């Protein structure tokens, strides 16, 4: 009995939380397979709404820093998520921005091309199959009076924020979702106490091209193709074939999964070490291999080949980019 108690006392406390995300990050934790038993041996899972019942109030009652590690996935879309981010920051010794959403906004961050008003109109008032007719223009309110008292909903923000734009973050884990190997590496580092300096991204410092086995020559692009327009050959670099492969600007760690199966890298691992703005780095790299010195031709190649520049260059990183969102005053279409 005493041995069991001792063992229990030595266990760390682990929390896994999700904010504006899809739940894929939780699934990716299970991809570490049998090693999950090692995680269980080292930690008690004190809070993880995805797989276990837990109460926020139990976390509120904890002492500050009582949770050893919190893996936080998801961006901050509303006030409730901001509350949870602040709470878990306070209660955790180590807070990890787990995955692309928490680190750089990811796909939900693309909503930063809109604001609350236009998102609400799309969701609650466009009469499509998923959005009912709403003739009375009823939208979610922060406060609603009912006979029983006042009901509150979280405040939905115009701009989705990353975790680091909201609270102090200790480590970042890239990927949508993070790779099992890298998750394990992070957990091992935390358990053994061999942690990198605060603020580091846990992963490798190279790009997807380094892990990609395709043949690479000098890149010269006359025309960009969308993925459905051509069937690329399986040997040559996809960018050289005119597909917008983001591997040149994207942090490695995935083993070049997408290019290996003939699909261009879409950049889910985010920027490499020392890069301020993922999209700027990708733009810079792609622009330099366009094979033209004629201003008009360059404009044409870009306009025809990249119809959705923000969705191409900032697919995963808009919220975490230097500009973070579109100009509110022009509502995203630039006109």
């Amino acid at each position, binding site marked *: 009995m005493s041995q069991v108690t001792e063992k229990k006392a030595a266990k760390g406390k682990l929390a896994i939380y999700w904010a504006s995300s899809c739940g894929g990050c939780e699934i990716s934790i299970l991809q570490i397979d049998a090693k999950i038993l090692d995680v269980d041996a080292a930690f008690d899972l004190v809070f993880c709404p995805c797989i276990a019942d837990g109460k*926020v*109030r139990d976390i*509120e009652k904890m002492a500050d820093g009582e949770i050893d590690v919190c893996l936080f996935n998801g961006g901050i879309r509303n*006030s*409730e998520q*901001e*509350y949870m981010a*602040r709470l878990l920051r306070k209660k955790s010794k180590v807070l990890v921005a787990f995955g692309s959403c928490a680190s750089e906004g990811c796909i939900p961050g693309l909503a930063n*091309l809109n604001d*609350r008003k236009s998102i609400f109109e799309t969701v609650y008032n466009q009469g499509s199959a998923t959005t009912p007719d709403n003739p009375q223009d009823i939208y979610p309110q*922060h406060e609603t009076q009912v006979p029983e008292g006042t009901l*509150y909903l*979280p*405040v*939905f*923000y*115009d*701009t989705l924020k990353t975790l680091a734009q909201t609270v102090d973050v200790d480590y970042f884990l890239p990927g949508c979702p993070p790779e099992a190997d890298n998750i394990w590496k992070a957990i091992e580092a935390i358990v053994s106490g061999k942690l990198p300096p605060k603020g580091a991204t846990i992963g490798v410092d190279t790009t997807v091209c380094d892990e990609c086995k395709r043949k690479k020559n000098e890149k010269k692009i006359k025309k960009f193709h969308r993925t459905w327009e051509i069937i690329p050959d399986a040997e040559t670099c996809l960018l050289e074939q005119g597909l917008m492969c983001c591997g040149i600007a994207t942090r490695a760690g995935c083993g070049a999964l997408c290019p290996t199966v003939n699909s261009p890298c879409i950049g889910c691992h985010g920027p490499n070490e020392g*890069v*301020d*703005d993922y*999209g*700027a*780095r990708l*733009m*810079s790299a*792609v*622009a*330099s291999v*366009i094979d*033209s*010195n004629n*201003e008009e031709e*360059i*404009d044409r190649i*870009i*306009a025809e080949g*990249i119809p*959705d*520049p*923000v969705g191409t*260059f900032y697919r995963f990183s808009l919220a975490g*980019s*230097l*500009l*973070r*969102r*579109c*100009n*509110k*005053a*022009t*509502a*995203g*279409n*630039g006109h």
Partner: protein
Amino acid sequence: MANENFEPKIVGFCCNWCSYRAADLAGTARIKYAPNVRVIRVMCSGRVDPSFVLKALASGADGVLIAGCHPGECHYIEQNYKAMRRYSILKHTLRAMGVEPDRVRLVWASAAEGQQLAEAIDQLVVDVRKLGPLKWPGNWSENGHREEALETILKEHEEAVEVS
């Protein structure tokens, strides 16, 4: 939008070999140009990473000028063509983000073209003044009732009946 009292803040990236010397020449020749531009010397217009421009705008600049050697006259053979392509792709993206294309401009000025550079700066200042302030960080302002909403959650949790 035009506001006579609005003084645009312009960040200017000038290449070491041509346009920075053009700016120097404008100075020694006492050619007047708008004082709104803050010139930063870079070795080549090809050194101007799009992130420099984005950082300037995100830090409160109203416009950005990139100036380099004329096409074919680059000190590093053809890096100004890379600047041309990066400018094109950046403009394409900025338009989608709601930044008016007139705010970011690429111009060519040789070391002898102090007058032309001064005119290009004046023109950019006139155009940006017409557009008004960009105030990019204002786009991130927090929504109303945010702090209240954060406090409400705590209050609700305190008031709620605990079931065990």
